C-alpha cells in the first residue's frame, strides 16, 4: 500500500535520509524505531510531502506521489498526526476537526464530523467550543488523532504520539491504536521511543540508523541483541 523506495532527503545542504526502503501493507501497524536524530521524523515528513525527496520514490496504492504536494497526499488517503501535534491554536476544537474533513474522499461534501472520528475520544465533544491552543498536551493529542481520522484515511502516520503525555492517556492512545488495528480499515506507520509501547501494538518493525534502514523484522525477530545493538543508548 505504501512503498518507499531508496529515499534520500534532507534539509538544505545536509542529507538526513540516505537510502530508506520500507513498505506498509493494508491493515498493518508498522513501527519505526531508532535513536534520537537518525531521521525518523524526517522520514515521516518526506512521506507526507513536507520535505522534497532528492532521490528515490514514494508510491501509495499504486500512485506515484514522489513529487506530489502534501495536500494531494492527504486527499489520496494519508492521515498525519505530527510530532508536537500542531493543533490550530486559535481555532476551536470543533473547527480543528472540521479542517480535518478537507481531505475527505466522500463523493458529496461532508459537512459534519463523522461518528468514527470521535467515537474513540469521548472527552472531545464536551470541549468543542474551546480553543485548540487552550487544551492540555494530552487533550491536544487526542484532538490531533480525531482531526486525522475525520477524513477516514487508509494510512495513518503517527509521529511520537505519546511524547510528553501522562501515563493514563498513553494507555488511552494505545487502546485507540489497537481499536484502529482491530477495525482493519486503516494501516499505521508509527514512530515511537517506548519499546514496550511499540511491542504491544506493532506487527512489523524497522530500525533506522544514520539515515538508512539498519534492521527490519517481525515481532518474534525483535530480540534482545537487536535492541541492544540498535536501540540502547
Amino acid at each position, binding site marked *: 500500500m505504501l512503498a518507499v523506495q531508496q529515499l534520500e532527503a534532507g534539509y538544505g545542504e545536509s542529507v538526513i535520509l540516505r537510502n530508506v526502503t520500507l513498505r506498509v501493507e493494508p491493515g498493518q501497524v508498522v513501527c519505526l524505531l531508532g535513536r534520537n536524530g537518525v531521521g525518523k521524523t524526517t522520514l515521516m515528513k518526506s512521506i*507526507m*510531502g*513536507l520535505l522534497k525527496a532528492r532521490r528515490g520514490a514514494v508510491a501509495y496504492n499504486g500512485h506515484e506521489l514522489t513529487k506530489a*504536494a*502534501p*495536500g494531494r*497526499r*492527504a*486527499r489520496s488517503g494519508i492521515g*498525519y498526526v*505530527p510530532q508536537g501535534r*500542531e*493543533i*490550530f*491554536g*486559535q*481555532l476551536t476544537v470543533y*473547527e480543528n476537526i*472540521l*479542517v*480535518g474533513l*478537507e*481531505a*475527505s474522499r466522500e463523493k458529496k461534501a461532508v459537512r459534519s464530523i463523522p461518528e468514527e472520528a470521535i467515537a474513540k475520544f469521548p472527552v472531545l465533544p464536551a470541549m468543542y467550543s474551546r*480553543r*485548540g*491552543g*487552550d*487544551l492540555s498536551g494530552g487533550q491536544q493529542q487526542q484532538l490531533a488523532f480525531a*482531526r*486525522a481520522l475525520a*477524513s477516514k484515511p487508509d494510512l495513518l502516520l503517527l509521529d511520537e504520539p505519546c511524547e510528553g503525555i501522562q501515563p493514563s492517556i498513553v494507555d488511552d492512545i494505545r487502546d485507540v491504536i489497537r481499536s484502529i488495528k482491530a477495525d482493519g480499515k486503516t494501516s499505521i506507520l508509527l514512530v515511537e521511543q517506548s519499546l514496550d509501547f511499540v511491542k504491544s501494538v506493532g506487527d512489523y518493525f524497522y530500525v533506522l540508523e544514520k539515515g538508512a534502514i539498519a534492521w527490519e523484522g517481525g515481532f518474534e525477530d525483535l530480540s534482545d541483541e537487536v535492541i541492544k545493538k540498535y536501540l540502547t543508548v
Partner: protein
Amino acid sequence: MEVITLQLFNGLSVSSILLLIALGLAITFGLMKVINMAHGELIMIGAYSTYLTQNIFNDYLPKSMFDWYFALSIPVSFLIAFLFGLILEMSLIRFLYGRPLDSLLATWGVGLVLQQLARSIFGAPNVAVTSPSWLDGGVTFLGAVLPYKRLFIIGLVALTLLAMYFYIYRSLEGRRMRAVMQNRDMAACLGVSTRRVDAMTFAIGSGIGGIAGCALTLLGPIGPSLGTYYIVDAFMVVVLGGVGKLVGTVLGALGIGVFNTMFEYWTNASLGKVLVFLCIVAFLQWRPMGFVAMRSRSLDS
C-alpha cells in the same frame, strides 16, 4: 454642547474612514504578513472604478437612473480591486511570502506602476465624482449637523466589518483561511489547498481596499496618488490595533481617529498629527503587540 457633539461625530467619522482603509490591510498585512505598499493603489483603483461607473451611467443611462450609480459602484469597486489583487498575488506576491523586505520593495514598485497607469489613462489632474443626491444634506442632532455622506460611510464600515466577520469566522472558506494562516504546513497536510487560500485571501483584502476607495470619492476629488495619502495611516491602524485581530483594527482606528480630532481641535492640523504619532510611539513602547495581542497556550511556548 454643539461643539462636543460635532467633535465626537468628527472623531467617529475619521475613525470610520481610517477603519475602512485599514480593513483590507488587516487581511493582507495582519493575517498574511505581506507588507503590501500597493494597498493605497488598490484604494485608488476602487476610487477610479467608481468614477468609471459614474461616467457609464452618465453616458448610457437615463438621467433618472443616475442617482443609483453609487449603489452599483460599491460592488464594482470591490470586484475590480479584487481582480487586481488576484493578479498581483498570482504573478508576484506568491514568490515573496516570508520575505518581508523584498515584498515591501516589490509592492512599492507595483504601487508606482499603478499610479503611472492611472495617470496615463485618466490624466494627472484630479477628477471629481458627483455624489448621488440622496447623500446631500444632513441630519441635525443635538444642535450639530451630521452630513449624510459621513453617516453613510460609518454604515458602510459597519456592514463591511460584519461581512468580514461572517466570512472569516463563520464560513468554510474563512476556516480554511485561518487554518492556513496559523499553520501553513499542517493545513496542507490535512488537504487544504494553500495556494488557493493565499490567492483568495489576498484578493479579498484588495477588494476591501477597493470599497474604501469607493467611499473616498464621497469626500472629495480623486487622483492617481490618492492612495499615498492613506497608506501610512492604514499601516498605523493595523500595527496599533495588534496584528491579526479584527477587534484590534477597530480599536486602532477608533483610537487614532478620536485622538486625532481632539488634538486638532486643541492645537492645529499638523501639530495634532505630531501629537498622535507621539502617542502611538509611546503606546507601542508600552505594548509592542498593540491593543489586542493574541494569547494562548500554544503561542506562549
